[in-house]
Every structure is written in C-alpha cells, then in structure tokens.
C-alpha cells in the first residue's frame, strides 16, 4: 500500500495593523470603524494608566500582588469589543490579563482593584453582567466556560428557551495551555459542539518560563486543531486583527455551534506580577524589541495618519485617564471594611447549624465550635455527673 496523508492542517495568522502602523486594506476592510478605533485607543490608554496606578498602589502597600496587563491591551480590546458589539450578554471567563475585555462588557473598574486589594467583594459581579470571578488556579476555568456554553445550548434545545447570539469566551495564557483542564475543555467543546471561544494570550512567558520550555509545538493554536476545532492565530497587539478573528469566532459559535481557538501573539511588557522582577530572566533586547510593538504606539500612529488624533486630544485623554483612575481608586479604597460575619456568609446557600454556631461563638471567647467552651479554665460543665 502506498503511504497516504492521514491528516493535514494549515493555520492562518492574521495581522492587519502592523508595528509600523501599516494597515492591510484588504483584510482590514469592514472591521473597526474610525470612531470605534478611536474609542478603543482611548480605552487602552485608560487601562494602561490604571495598570500603572495599580503598580504604584502595590509598591506603596495599598494593594496586594497585581498582575500588570501592560502590552496586552489590544488583545483584550479587540476581543472584548467584538463581544460587546456582536454578542452582548455573552459570558466572559477570565484569568487576569484581560481587564479591558471585562470593563468593556460591564465590569465596574473598581472591582479589579478591590480583588487585588484582597477584598472578596471584587468578585461580586453586578447582576446582569455575565463575568465569572478571576480564576487563580491556572487553566481550570476554561472547563467552566465549556459548561456555560453547554448550558447555553441546553437551555435552547431542552428547555426551549429563546437563544440570542451569546457565546462563552475564556481567556488564558500560553502556560495554561499545558494544563490538562484546558485540553479537556477543548475536547468537550469540540465533541459536544459548543458555542465557546478559547482565547489564549501567548505572551511568550509563564512567569520565568519561556514558551520554548513550555511546549514543543510551533504554535499554541495547533493544539486546538488536534481536537477538531477551528483555530486561528492573530497579532495580539493589533486591535483590528483581534476584533476580526473574535467576530468570526462569534459567528461560528452562534450560527454553527462550533468552538474556535484564538492564539493572540503578544508580549508581557511588565513583570509577571508585582511580586516578580523579570529583569532577572529576560534578555533586555527582547523586551526592547517588543516595546516597539506596543499596541498603544501603533494604534496612535494609525489614528494620527488618518487625522483622527492629535497632540491636544492626547493631552486631554491623559488628563481624563488620570481623573478617572483616581476616582476609581477612591471608590475601591473607600468601601467600608467587611464585617466578620462575612467570613461565614456565602459558604452555603443557607447556612447550616454548624456554621451558624461558629459565627455566633466568634463573638464570644470560645476557642472552638462549642459555645460552652467560653473559657477553658472555668470548668463549667453544668449538667456533668
């Protein structure tokens, strides 16, 4: 028998606005309108400032560890905006490097600061906003995204509810793509034909581990193709490319009930988190090269070329960003401290006796679960024989 090719695959890589602000008219036509590009540039600038302030808050002891989004704003902007525009009400299942996608879809900006300040209420998402809390275990949340997508489909097919074009999008990193959970999530989404989008921000590093040590594969997206899923790579620092691939993925999900994997190629310009110092393990030349690919710079250049932006507008925007963020910080820091009852509430839908007992004894001198143990030295066993 002659050998035959069992399977062959090609994966597209999409770039529309490159680092020199060259715009590909043929791919870019019908993507973002001028006013939308301006809007996203403004949003990216605001979250960049937000990021810098968050960093300073941590350094001055006013916040816990914070993972900067710096350099990756375009991936969140393009994808988040496509969701907001074409599939509002969709579920967003985040990790921690796509703040702007969450803000664009209704998450109040102080929530993320509150979260990293160590306040659980940062995860209390307002009603009507379909965003899950930030997931700290790496890569475990895309499974929840598959479950939500399953629910979208089930509600229509079994419960006969009207379905809009909502989809579920999960965000995770290149490192997360090594976790088994992510692979199980992809397999389920593909096998069960779910309206899910997997958005992997390949920022080339997982803390200090470079992509070359993380995986032997050329791309991240090819992993998804192995599950029979459509996959595409995009320039993650290009709002137009990110918008386009996400919009296509929304269509594939809501029209055809098929998942898509998007690999956004980007770079973490900052440290992994405020607890890290990336200078210890990254070549400064590599970092510098990526600074030149900064999404804010190329988007601004593009807008300037089209006469959509000016130095005055920039000054005004920076002032606005400063004012906005300082108000957000005030809101986050101004919230009253939680009361100790909050430790117990939310453990169960209805608090069981044993938790109520613990809550009550917390306000006494009891050492344990037993209210009669108020003090250990007073031997007060009333009914003891």
């Amino acid at each position, binding site marked *: 028998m002659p050998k035959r090719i069992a399977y062959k695959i090609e994966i597209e890589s999409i770039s529309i606005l490159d680092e020199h602000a060259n715009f590909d008219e043929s791919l870019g036509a019908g993507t973002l309108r001028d006013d939308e590009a301006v809007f996203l540039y403004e949003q990216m600038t605001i979250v960049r400032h937000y990021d810098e302030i968050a960093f300073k808050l941590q350094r001055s002891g006013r916040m816990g560890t914070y993972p900067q989004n710096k350099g990756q704003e375009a991936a969140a902007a393009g994808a988040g905006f496509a969701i907001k525009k074409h599939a509002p009400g969709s*579920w967003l*299942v985040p990790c921690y490097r796509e703040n702007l996608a969450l803000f664009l879809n209704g998450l109040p900006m102080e929530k993320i600061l509150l979260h990293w300040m160590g306040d*659980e*209420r940062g*995860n*209390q*998402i307002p009603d009507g906003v379909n965003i*899950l*809390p930030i997931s700290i*275990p790496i890569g*475990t949340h895309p*499974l*929840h*995204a*598959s*479950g*939500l*997508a*399953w*629910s*979208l489909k*089930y*509600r229509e*097919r*079994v*419960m006969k509810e009207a379905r809009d074009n909502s989809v579920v999008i999960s965000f995770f990193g290149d490192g997360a793509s090594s976790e*088994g*959970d992510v692979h*199980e*999530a992809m*397999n*389920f989404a593909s*096998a069960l034909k779910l309206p899910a989008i997997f958005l992997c921000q390949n920022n080339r590093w997982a803390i200090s581990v470079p992509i070359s040590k993380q995986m032997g594969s050329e791309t991240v997206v090819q992993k998804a193709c192995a599950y029979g899923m459509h996959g595409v790579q995009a320039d993650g620092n290009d709002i137009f490319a990110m918008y386009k691939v996400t919009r296509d993925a929304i269509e594939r999900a809501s029209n055809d009930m098929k998942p898509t994997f998007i690999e956004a190629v980007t770079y973490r310009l900052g440290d992994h988190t405020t607890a890290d110092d990336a200078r210890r393990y990254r070549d400064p030349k590599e970092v510098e090269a990526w600074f030149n690919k900064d999404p804010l710079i190329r988007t601004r250049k593009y807008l300037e070329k089209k006469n959509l932006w000016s130095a005055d507008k920039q000054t005004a925007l920076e002032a606005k960003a400063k004012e906005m963020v300082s108000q957000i910080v005030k809101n986050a820091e101004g919230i009253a401290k939680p009361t100790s009852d909050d430790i117990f*509430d*939310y*453990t*169960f*839908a*209805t608090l*069981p*006796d*044993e*938790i109520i007992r613990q809550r009550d004894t917390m306000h006494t001198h009891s050492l*344990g*679960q*037993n209210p*009669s*143990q108020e003090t250990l030295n007073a031997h007060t*066993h009333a009914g*003891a*024989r």
Partner: protein
Amino acid sequence: MSAVMDAVGALPPRTGDRVIQFREALREAMSEEMRNDERIFLLGEEVAQYKGAYKVSEGMLEEFGPKRIIDTPISENGFAGLAIGAAMYGLKPIVEFMSWSFSLVAADQILNNAPKMLYMSGGQWGCPAVFRGNDGAGGQLGSTHSWCVEALYANVPGLKMAIPSCPYDAKGLLVTAIRDPDPVFFLESERMLGDKAHVPEEQYAIPFGQAYKHREGDACTLVSFGRPVNFCLEAADELATDGIEVDVLDMRTIRPLDIDSIIESVKKTNRIVIVDQSWPFAGIASEVMAQVCERCFDWLDHPPVRVTTDDVPTPYSKVLEQAYLPNAGKIVKAVKGAL
C-alpha cells in the same frame, strides 16, 4: 436536631412490601426529579448507552434522550468542570463518577472550584451540582480503586456529603441532594447496589443533617455511616443475644453532621463506638470523637472507641481485604471492650 426513629413529617413509612434494589432506588430518585425539572441532566462515563457501569441509569437514556443522559469522554476533571460551569448558569447537573476513586483526577474542580464558587463570588454563583458514585472497597479492586474519599473531601467547607446505608435512604437522600442549591457529594457503594428493601413509590426528601436511629439501647452508642451501618446492625443483633442493647445511629450525611443526636445518645449510654470504613488517621471517626470529647467529655465512662480499617493501602487479596475492613465481629469486640 434529634435522631429520628420513625417517619417524621411527610416521610412515608420505611417498611412495606415494595422491595427494590438500592440501584433502582437511586434511579427512581433521579428519574422522578428529572421528570419534574428539565434543568436536571445526568452525565458521566457510560451512563447512557451502557446504562451506567453499574446499571444505575438503566432505561434513563430511553426516557430522557441523549440531550439529558450524556456519555462523556473519559475525562473526570473535564466533565466535573463542565458541570460546574453549567450549574453556574442555571442547570442542575448530576455527575456520575464510575468510582469516587477516579474523582481524584478531578480534585481541583470538585474541591477547589465547586465548593468555593458561591463564597468567592460573594453569594453570586452557587453550584447546585450532585457528584455521585461508588465509594469504599468494592471487593478486590486493589488499593487505587477502593478509595473512601469521605475524610479527605469532607474536610473542605462549602460542600455537603451524603452516604446512605440502605435503599430507602438512598432514594430520599438523593432527592434532597438533587434539590439542594449547594454542591452535594453522594457516596454509594458498589457492594450495596444490589441490596433489596422496601422503597416507597412516591418521591420523598430526607432532610440532611438528621441521623436515623435504627435501634435503641442504653449500653453503648454505636455510630456509623454508609455500608458499615449494616455491620453495626449485625453486631447489635449478636450483642442482644448476650443481653447488650445498643443505640445504632446512622449519620446518613457527614456534612452536615448530626452531632447533636450523637451527644444526646452518649449522655444516655456514656459509651461510644464509632465505625468508619476508612483509615484511622484524621478520619470521620476521629472528627466524631473530637466533637464528643469537646462536648460531652464528662459523660463518658470509657474512652471513645474507633473501629476503622488498618492504616495501610487497601489490600487486593480477598482474605487480606476482609481482614482489613470493619466487620460485625470487630464491632462486637469493640462494644464489649467499652462496657
């Protein structure tokens, strides 16, 4: 709450002549709830076409169709996580693990996600999912396949855990589990699935956190949960021939744990023997013992006694496995020793 000896409130009588298997009782609980609530679906390995590895879901694919009875890939962590996501968006999944032993590969989803979702979202998104499957030594399945997960898992706040010992409780507790808004871990036993007893046809829900007193006596309090409750009853029969009458308390749920009923009984008998089919170190028996010591130390006339397995991996050999597990003989000895 006080342990009940007879039907309370709306619960139907425990005795009668509608004798069915434990597995059928489980199936009745699921099917009837599914008929009434289309948010409920069952997923797991082999649950549809094959009717479940242990035939618990026989006939359910025919009745509810493949959209609600779902054969999954072999991916415990995967379908556990999928269920959590689905539960967060308004569905009520029942996840069948072929064995709880295989849930260990799903540990992050079931322990680190399901029980914490409500808490971490400040009360926003709960996880009304039921995870069920066989727990404990199934009979020569070897140490990796004979897990009792109760001690390990019950340590985590935010989840509930039910462990029936008989078909009547299996049905009533599973109904409650399915209706519960929080994640419930439901522990069955392969060794009991064929057990037969009267099970009422109607749907009934046994409240969680309420022990059942199978037998009344004042010589000693005998406490257990799940399969070894049956060994306790055997032991109680044997003890009765020597004129020793014991209270036999079946906890039915480990979380919540009806410690009040245990305390009440100990205050009467002044002795307690706790039977646990798992390891002795930091087990559920240890927890019961700790709470008894905290709350009624002065009523005890003898140190609390535990009957557990030996502190070794579950042996594969039949004779060794039998020697390792609790049984009626060991319980009789323990009670006599505590008198």
